[in-house]
């Protein structure tokens, strides 16, 4: 199989699942971390060079440098700003990760900031620091008990879009705070990928590859992504106030080394979705919604697109890997649709499993000889279809959350992404057309038409009676209506509308 970037894969370099589904997705990454990690690559400085010490063939801060490196071969240098992260999260994180050096650094940081506040008495100054902290932690992306350096802020401004730097206990415990010691801010491991597992990189590579194929989307997507993360310059000023003053005080900051990262690989089969991903993203980003609403919906959308391209990668001529959707709308319970959806879901997983076995045969010589086949398949299954289950549940396209009878469905949040990404802003199409587009874009089987089309491919069982699909479609209409995207126009015709205005054209 060809990979993108088109590099030669060394023996034991990647596990089977990474060759088949890109390097890599893992269960510990939460949905906002996909978005943050993706944006982190997008906004980082990029350098063309094969080896870290070579002089770069180019440097750029373009999000998608297709004129310099359409092949995806470059390194990127994310900004670290560990002082800012420490300031935001240290007081409210779990005790475990707090090394003395960081506690001291934090105290110093607060002291410095207090001294940089003018007006008000000492208490007021102290309070102001707490206010700033609370303001920023309010936008925390992950509500889990984690060490401070593993926490993330929603991408409210570019300054908070930071990579993961692991504060390894043995390293940190040896250190003592000293303004002249660069190791205070440097001794973090940026290549651990514990929570930022490179899922965002996989999505970035997919987009880069897509834009290289369809450069007409480059300008608008870069512009809109940039607008989304720069809508609130206030946050940038605030973050710069913290980090800037910290760096000034902590003199060794100038010596802290930058970090260079390389992207992983994705299979070229993801390119099947190139144009669809871009047109969806364009419509979605062009819809003028509140920047927050946009981020939260986009986080869901990215997962959905990733899932679909991975399902598609495993598809074959007569196994389209379509998603039979049980709409599951309250008041429209539909046992037959549920049954079919469960059966189809099982079949999906079989298709992926078969794909894993084929992959094992094909790439056996690239994999670890010491590991037996069963262990390889087990690992690969854990990081592919078992993980898809988790992702699907996270964004509400797979129900139920626990228990048996897993199947595809559509949550309100995902419906919002689907409407905004399929229909351009302020436009409307008929419900039938919308359902057809969902089939084309995401292989979603909702009504009888889509099901019949799948029967001819041979990926679903022929059933004599399609009435349950009609009921399923009606339920979908009701769900869209409940979400405020559908209006009954007249007899048997309903329209689905993207109610959002179009974002203003470039300023």
């Amino acid at each position, binding site marked *: 199989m060809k990979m993108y970037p088109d590099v030669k894969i060394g023996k034991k370099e990647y596990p089977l699942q990474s060759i088949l589904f890109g390097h890599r997705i893992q269960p510990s990454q939460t949905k906002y971390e996909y978005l943050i990690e993706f944006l982190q690559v997008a906004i980082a400085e990029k350098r063309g060079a094969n080896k870290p010490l070579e002089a770069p063939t180019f440097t750029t801060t373009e999000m998608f440098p297709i004129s310099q490196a359409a092949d995806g071969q470059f390194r990127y240098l994310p900004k670290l700003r560990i002082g800012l992260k420490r300031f935001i999260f240290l007081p409210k994180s779990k005790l475990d990760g707090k090394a003395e050096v960081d506690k001291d650094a934090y105290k110093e940081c607060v002291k410095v*900031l207090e001294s*940089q*506040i*003018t*007006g*008000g008495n000492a208490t*007021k*100054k102290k309070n*102001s620091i707490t*206010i700033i902290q*609370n*303001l920023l932690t*309010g*936008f925390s992306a992950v*509500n889990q008990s984690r060490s401070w350096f593993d926490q993330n802020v*929603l991408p409210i401004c570019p300054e908070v879009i930071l990579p993961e730097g692991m504060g390894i206990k043995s390293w940190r415990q040896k250190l003592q705070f000293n303004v002249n010691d660069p190791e205070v801010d440097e001794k973090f491991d940026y290549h651990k990928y514990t929570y930022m597992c490179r899922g965002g990189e996989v999505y970035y590579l997919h987009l880069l590859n897509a834009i290289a194929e369809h450069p007409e989307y480059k300008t608008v997507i870069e512009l809109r992504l940039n607008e989304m993360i720069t*809508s*609130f*310059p*206030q*946050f940038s*000023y*605030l973050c*710069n*106030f913290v980090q*800037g*003053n910290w760096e*000034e005080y902590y003199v060794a900051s100038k010596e802290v080394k930058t970090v260079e990262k390389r992207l992983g690989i994705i299979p070229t089969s993801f390119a099947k979705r190139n144009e669809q991903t871009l047109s969806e993203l364009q419509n979605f980003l062009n819809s*003028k*919604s*509140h920047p*927050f*609403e946009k981020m*939260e919906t986009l986080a869901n959308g990215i997962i959905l697109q990733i899932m679909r391209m991975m399902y598609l990668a495993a598809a074959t001529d007569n196994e389209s890997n379509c998603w039979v959707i049980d709409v599951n709308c309250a008041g429209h319970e539909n046992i037959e649709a549920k049954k079919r959806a469960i059966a189809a879901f099982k079949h999906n997983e079989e298709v992926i499993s078969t794909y894993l076995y084929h992959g094992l045969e094909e790439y056996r010589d690239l994999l670890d000889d010491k590991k037996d086949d069963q262990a390889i398949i087990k690992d690969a299954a854990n990081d592919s279809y078992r993980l898809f289950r988790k992702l699907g549940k996270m964004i509400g396209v797979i129900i139920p959350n626990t228990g048996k009878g897993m199947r595809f469905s559509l949550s*309100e949040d995902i419906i*919002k992404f689907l409407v905004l990404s399929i229909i351009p802003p302020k*436009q*409307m*199409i*008929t419900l039938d*057309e919308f359902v057809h587009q969902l089939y084309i874009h995401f292989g979603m089987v909702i009504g009888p038409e889509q099901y019949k089309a799948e029967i001819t491919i041979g990926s679903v069982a022929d059933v004599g009676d399609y009435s349950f699909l009609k009921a399923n479609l009606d339920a979908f209409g009701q769900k869209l*209506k*409940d*979400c*405020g*995207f559908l*209006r*009954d*126009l*007249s*007899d*048997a*015709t309903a*329209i689905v509308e993207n*109610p*959002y205005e179009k974002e203003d054209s470039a300023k």
Partner: protein
Amino acid sequence: MNDFINYLNSTNNVGGNSTGSLAETQVKSSYYDAVKVDRKLGIYITDCVKSGNHKAFILTGHAGDGKTSILVQVLKSLGRLQECEGLCVQKEYDDFLYYKDMSEIAAEKQVEALKATVTAPERGMTSLLISNTGPLLKAFEALIREKKETSGQQFSDGDRMELQSKLLTQLDINEDQSLKIEGYEFVLVNIARVDNVPFAVRILKKILAPQLWVPCTICSCADHCPIKNNYELITAQFDRVAQFIENYYRFLYENDKRMTIRQMVGQISYALTGNLTCDYIESRHLKEPFFIYNFANLFFGYNGSKRAKDAAQIKGVEQIQNLELDRISLDIDYSLFVRNDYSCFMPKIQKELTALTQRYRKHYQITDEEQLLDEKKHEEELRLRGAVRRFYLLFSLCESDDDVDHVMNQIFGKSYADYRKLISSKQSNLTLRNMQGIVFEALYIKNTGYLPESKTNLPLTLRREGDVFQNVMIVLGEVGKSDLKVIQERSTNQFEDVDNKFDLYLKLGDKKFKLSLPMITYFNNLIDGAISSNNNPALTHGIAQLDALLLEQFGEEPPETEEDCELTVIINTAKGQEIERFAFENKKLSIQ
């Protein structure tokens, strides 16, 4: 024996005796003229024919909304349809051309029919084409494709989407102006977008016309006939009953659960007759006829205190049962159920209910604890209460309109009556200001988590969606209470059958935001302490839009440089709300 009863029974689909309520069947009935209601669109088309100002009309809408009836109205007022005469699939006169239903025309002829319709004015004819939306869109596509291709142009997929979007937009907003596409000019009317709520009362009035009920006055069953009893009850309290019915349909309409005219007629006629026939009443002894088959019970799909079999097939009954209006507690509950005081009804109903209470007295007297826990008895009592409430909703004596509104607000929501007034007639500034107060208070609570108390400025805070806790929020702007104006705008569509129709908007700078009934209900709930809008996703995106609009209109421009930036934050503390302001200068932060 009154044959009109059979006619009424034929208008709904419960039971097997329906002879069909399709307009083309109905038009042949001799009662059709007695109950039909003329519509403005029909008058307008007739005028076009008579005055020679020929136009092409295309009519779509829900099944049962009166499309065919409009055709019948035009033909009758042109004197071209005799009583009991049926319609043709298509017919051409010198000055008028009609197609009764596009889907009755063979698929390959549909484009021709459409073409004939839109070109009729050129040939000195007014035309009327009735169609379902699906075939219409297809036919239009084919027509435009043909026209473009004969002139050597391409008809791309993009053109197709654009044409579809253009037609769908018109069908959605239903403008009364004519539409021009590729040189064809026509008036496209979506009758499903015409407000039909007032028809309910007009039809009820026609159904109750005394001449239709003459046979009942001389009937031998008159003293125990539930249908005649219903007729008399409603005639005696016509305004009161009409108000309930109209408000109920209005409530459905405003909640996007619009009923078609056929569905309204079905429910009203079923409520009158319970689908009983004169033969049946004559030949059987009916138990408690005036209670079991009372209009109030039948309208809700009940026979007495039990649900009537199959009645939920009637759309209006199904919806009213889903809403469970008769289970909502009322201010009057105590005097109805504890004191058994029925003085709020007229004597005839008082008598009926008192007799009912006596019959079921044992259920009302819970003597020992065992009975108290008896679920079956408890259920039965609840059912009886439901019945009494149904009577109350339809028949309670109200001295003034305000009293009626008070009853309606209890079941349809606190601001329901105000909202209805605001969309149906010009209101005083005071009413508008009240509504403004509700909107302001609700938004304040939503934005800050606190009651506004005496504050007059609404901070526009930056909040995360969902229930993520944020005790410090950044303020992106402020709106003065007086800048949140609630305004009424008159709808000017000449096909609307209502004389006065207004839309309610929240005016925000140079933009406006439509206030719907569910939205206002949501605002009231917020004020009453409801926490999230998650239970109704329809509202979440409406509210997201309102947020975006408020920010667009009243948000401060994002600062261009650090020096311009003044950061305002709201802090929720145990003591209440505090506001802090910060400014940046020279790497320093100043507190103000």
